[in-house]
Structure formats: C-alpha cells, structure tokens
C-alpha cells in the first residue's frame, strides 16, 4: 500500500479532513512538526474502524472485535509518516522517537507504517520492542508484512505468542510461506501441554498445526472453537 492509496481509503471517513490535509502538508515541509501532530490525529480524525475490503484485507468470518483491523487514526498517522521528507538515519531517528514516546495507539500506527517507509531493516528493533509487550494490539501489528525482517527464531516465537494471546493468525503476514517444521513442533508441544491441562488451542492454530504438523484438522483432537475455549477457561 502507498500513501496515495491510504488517502483514497480515508476519503469521506475523516472527521476533520482539512486538519489532516494541513497536517500532511506541514509534516512534508517541517518534519519536526510530526511530534505534536501525530498524537493529535486520533481526536482530530476519529478512531472508527476502516472496512477491511478498503484495505485489501480478507477479514474472514470472525473479524470483530479484531486487534488486526485498521482504524481511521491508524491510517491518518501512517499517512503522516509517509509524508516525512526524510531518509536513512534521519528517518529512522524520527520514527524511533515517535514510537518511543508514543501512546499504545501511536505505537501501533508506527508498526503499521514500517513496511511503507524507506527504512530497510532499520525498524526491526521496534518490532522486537512490540513483541516484548503483552498488548494484543501491538503484538498483532508487529507480525504484519514488516516481520519479514525478523529472523526465523524470533518470527516463530512471535507466531506462538499470537496463539497464546488468541490473536487471529490472519494477522501474521507470509504465514503460508514461512511456517515450517520447527513452528509445527512448537505448536504441537503447546497442544500437548494444553491437552494435559484439559485445555485446547485456538481453532486457527489447530488448522495450521494440521497443515504443518502431525495432528488432525479442526474439529479433531487438540482444536476447539474460540468461544468454547473462552467459556471453558480455568480462570
């Protein structure tokens, strides 16, 4: 996705479009202005959900409430970042500072912007930070397309963490391509541990495990509907 496509998605959905147009213009002229405009985007543009279709995502049947879904403020903030007239270490420094001092919503927007910025792998430390948190919104945003910069060991841990936190695996970019035997082993061990405790793993993890591991597909042993899982929790 590009800044232009984001602007199209936001068309007609922003509470104060003049503010956003002016903010993008100011950031393009004065990159330091982003420090005050970035946090204000939520209250000026709104925080409602954006339709998944508009973003080219297939939401699936159980999309809401979904930590994967984009909101208006996410897209507005990403638009501000794509307007920064910076490159290389200057861009990385500005993005680091916005993440470092960001609220959870701002941090999520930075994570979502990473694959759209000319950063190379310079933003990977931000992903590591997000994956250390226990905030579902940040972890979900950290396993998007930019996670291609995570090494395999860290990427598998990130996927496993999504399973633990019941973040839908639709959040994980490149899952089909990257899921390997070692991830299958880790999911299988988790399913064994859960079974010993009289518990199950989420349905989408069960399907993934069936594709790359030894267990049968959803509906068989080791898998369960997410609602049943919640109701049956040990507390």
């Amino acid at each position, binding site marked *: 996705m590009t800044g232009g496509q984001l602007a199209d998605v936001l068309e007609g959905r922003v509470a104060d479009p003049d503010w956003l147009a002016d903010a993008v213009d100011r950031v393009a002229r004065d990159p330091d202005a982003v*420090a005050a405009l970035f*946090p204000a985007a939520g209250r000026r543009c709104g925080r409602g959900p954006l339709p998944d279709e508009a973003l080219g995502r297939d939401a699936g049947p159980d999309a809401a409430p979904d930590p994967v879904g984009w909101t208006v403020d996410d897209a507005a903030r990403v638009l501000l970042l794509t307007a920064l007239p910076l490159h290389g270490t200057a861009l990385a420094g500005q993005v680091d500072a916005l993440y470092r001092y960001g609220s959870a919503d701002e941090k999520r927007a930075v994570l979502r912007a990473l694959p759209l910025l000319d950063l190379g792998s310079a933003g990977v430390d931000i992903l590591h930070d997000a994956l250390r948190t*226990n905030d*579902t919104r940040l972890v979900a945003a950290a396993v998007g397309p930019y996670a291609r910069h995570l090494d395999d060991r860290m990427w598998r841990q990130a996927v496993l*963490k999504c399973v*633990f936190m019941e973040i839908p695996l639709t959040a994980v970019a490149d899952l089909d391509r990257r899921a390997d035997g070692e991830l299958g082993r880790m999911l299988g061990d988790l399913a064994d541990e859960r079974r010993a405790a009289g518990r199950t793993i989420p349905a989408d993890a069960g399907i993934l495990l069936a594709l790359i591991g030894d267990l049968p597909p959803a509906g068989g042993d080791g898998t369960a509907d997410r609602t049943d899982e919640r109701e049956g929790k040990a*507390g």
Partner: protein
Amino acid sequence: MRIFDPHIHMTSRTTDDYERMAAAGVRALVEPAFWLGQPRTNAGSFTDYFDALIGWEPFRAAQFGIRHHCTIGLNPKEANDPRCREVLGLLPRYLAKDGVVAVGELGYDSMTPEEDEVFAAQLAMAVAHELPALVHTPHRDKQRGTLRTLDVVKESGIAPGMVVVDHLNEVTVGSVAGSGCWMGFSIYPGTKMSPDRMAAVLREYGPERMLVNSAADWGRSDPLLTLATGQAMLAAGFTDDEVDRVLWRNPVEFYGQSGRLDLSPTDGQDAAFAGNSLARGGN
C-alpha cells in the same frame, strides 16, 4: 449508579479491583501521575511510568469496560530532586497525547522554592496546551498550603475553572469555593474524608464544581468509596440526579475541557482471553 473516579492510582491496584469497580458502576477514571512511594532518581524512570499511563494501564482497564485517562506532571516531592528536573523538558511530548486530560498532580509538598518554580512552570504548560490542571494540597500545613496554592494559581493566569484543587476537607473547602476553582475530595480512610462527612459538605456547599474521588493507591485505601459516597448521599436525602451529577457529570464536565475524554464503550471482556483473567501471553 454510573461512576467516574476522577483521581485513582490504578498502577498500584490489582486486577480484582478493576473487576469490583466495574461491578460497582465505575465506567471511567482519571489516573494522575504521582509519587510511587519509592523516590525515582532519573528522568527515564518517569518516562517509563508515563508510558504505562498511556499504554498498558488503559489496555488493562478496557478489558473491564472502564475508560482510562491520565494526568501527566512532575509531582512536588520529586521536583525537589535535581536529578528528576529533566522530566520537565519531556512533558510536552506527553501533554500532546489523546489519553492525557490534564497536567498534574501539581502543588506543594514541603513548600520549597524548587516546588514553587516547578509548580509555576507546569501551570504555564497547562495554559499552553489548553489543558486543565490537577493541583493537590499538602498533607502537612494544609490550610496555609491551600491558600498559597490559590495565590500561585491566580498569578499563573490560568482560568480558575480549569483547575481542581484536591484533597480538600471541611477546613480548606471554603477558601477554594470562593476562588472559582473546582473542589476535589478524596474519600480515603483515616487521613482524608469519609462518605458521611462528604455528604455533609455537599449539603453545605451544594454540588457545583464538586469532584469526589477515592484517590486509591498503594496506601490503605478503597476504590469503592466513590460508590459508598453515592450511597451516603442517597441516605442523606440527595436525589439520584444529584448523585449522578457529583459522581459522573461533574468529572465529565471538568476533564471534558481537555477535549480529549473518550467515553465510548470499550471492547470490554472481549479483550480478555482464554486461560487468563487478563490478556498477557507468554505464561
């Protein structure tokens, strides 16, 4: 009874408290930045704390259907430590945030020249960011400290309606009532107000510009004393509408002046995941 606790330190409270508060009718709260009991010795220690107030703590609260906001500031006790002074330069970053609805807690602890300076500087930041200010009154020498607080507020040029002077009691309420500032009362066992005394103060001064909070923190305190105060008001003959004004509409009006209150429903329990009462992963 719907309750907005305008002053409570959830960082110091357990998840059980969130559950009990939600069951008691608490739907929104403000957590002021304050002294953590253990003195901090550097600015980074503050920024990590501020990050929790705009990151983890709102996330935790939302799982119980409670909207969490905060105030950001350098408290007077730590304003006396030169190692912490650097925090002042970092405050503007945080005062721009969505969930930050006031500057605070400000005010006096020991009434030193350093406290004077930091208090005035932060009131100026409140004016610059168009935010209300939460000013507490000192534990010691309270009457004198309250009067001096009102003088500093007046000199700063901030509109009195943008200021709440907190931790008041029967002795200090009168001077604040005449100042145009909002009056905050902490219903806190032992050292501050009780529900019945609060009802009596409301009877005498009326509900206008009155805020009632639990100020629950790491001390012996109780996050449900807002509810107990509502019940004491009803027992004392106040109407449901008067209780709603004091426990909900007043804090919404005061902190709403920031333009940043978000009282929309949270995803609530939908964010709580299997196997844990709190989504946290990795265990």
